[in-house]
C-alpha cells in the first residue's frame, strides 16, 4: 500500500464515521474528511518513514483532528474529541485488519 492508497482508504473510513455521528450534509462531510486526512495522513506517513514514534504521532494526529473537526464542522469541543477518537481508532483497526 502506498501513501496515496493509504490516504484514500483513511478518507473513506473517517467519512463513514463522521456520517454515522452527524447524519446530515454528507457531501460536506466527505469534503471535510478529504481536507482533514489530507493534512494528517501523508504527514504522519512521511514522519513515520523517519522512524519517529508511532504512538506519539498517532496522538498528535488525534489532537490535530480535534482542532480541525471542531472548527470545520463547528461542533462542541467534547464532540470533536469523541469524533476524532472514534475515527482514528476505527481507521487504525480497519487498516490493521485489511491492509
Amino acid at each position, binding site marked *: *500500500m*502506498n*501513501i*496515496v*492508497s*493509504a*490516504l484514500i482508504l483513511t478518507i473513506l473510513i473517517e467519512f463513514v464515521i463522521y456520517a454515522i455521528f452527524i447524519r446530515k450534509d454528507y457531501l460536506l462531510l466527505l469534503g471535510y474528511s*478529504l*481536507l*482533514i486526512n*489530507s*493534512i*494528517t495522513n*501523508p*504527514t504522519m*506517513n*512521511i514522519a*513515520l*518513514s*523517519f*522512524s519517529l514514534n*508511532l*504512538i506519539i504521532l*498517532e496522538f498528535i494526529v*488525534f489532537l490535530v483532528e480535534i482542532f*480541525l473537526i471542531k*472548527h*470545520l464542522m463547528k461542533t462542541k469541543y467534547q464532540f470533536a474529541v*469523541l469524533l476524532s*477518537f*472514534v475515527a*482514528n*481508532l476505527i481507521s*487504525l*483497526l480497519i*487498516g*490493521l485488519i485489511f*491492509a
Partner: protein
Amino acid sequence: MNKSMFILGIFLLIALPLVYADVPSVPDPTHKTISVVNNITNLNDFPDYVFVSVSNGPAGGSSMCEVIPIGQDQIIEIAAYRWCGSADVYAIKKSDYNQNLTGSQIINSSMAIKVLSGITNSEFLPVTDTRSTIYNEYKINLSNSTDIPHKQVVETDYSFYLYLIIPIFAIIVVIVILVKRRQ
C-alpha cells in the same frame, strides 16, 4: 461516554500501533522496496571458470534455493524464495563443475572459491529515500572475496516530494475556509 469504554478505547489506541509495528507482513506505506541490479564486469577474464550464485539465507544451500549460473549477460541472479536471502558468488573450474551441484555442496567444496558475498537484489527503504534503482558493478579476482562494488550507479526518483503538496494544499484550503467564515 461510559468511563470504562473510554479507558478501553485509550488502551486500544495505544496498544494497536505497537501490534502494527510488530507485523512485518502488513503493507507499509512508509517504506518501499527498490531493485538492486548486480553485475560482474570482468567475467570474461576467467574463461576456465563457471560462476554461480548460491543463497546464504536461512534456506540457503537447500533445494528450495537453486544454484544459478551467471551467464554472458554477467548479471547476478538470486534465488527468488524469500528465505533464500542474499547470495554469495562462487567460482568453480569448468572441469569440476556440473549442473547438479547443490548449494550446500558448493559451500562445503574446496573446489569452489568464494569471490563475492552478501549480494541482494532488493532493498527496503523509507519512502523519503529518493533512490529508485541501484546498479552495482563488481570486479572479481580469485584470490579474495569482496562485498563492495567497484562502481555504483543510482537512479533517483523525486516523485515522493509530490506527496508533500497534498498536506500543504489542504492546510491552505482549511485556512481559507476558516478566514472566510470569520469575515
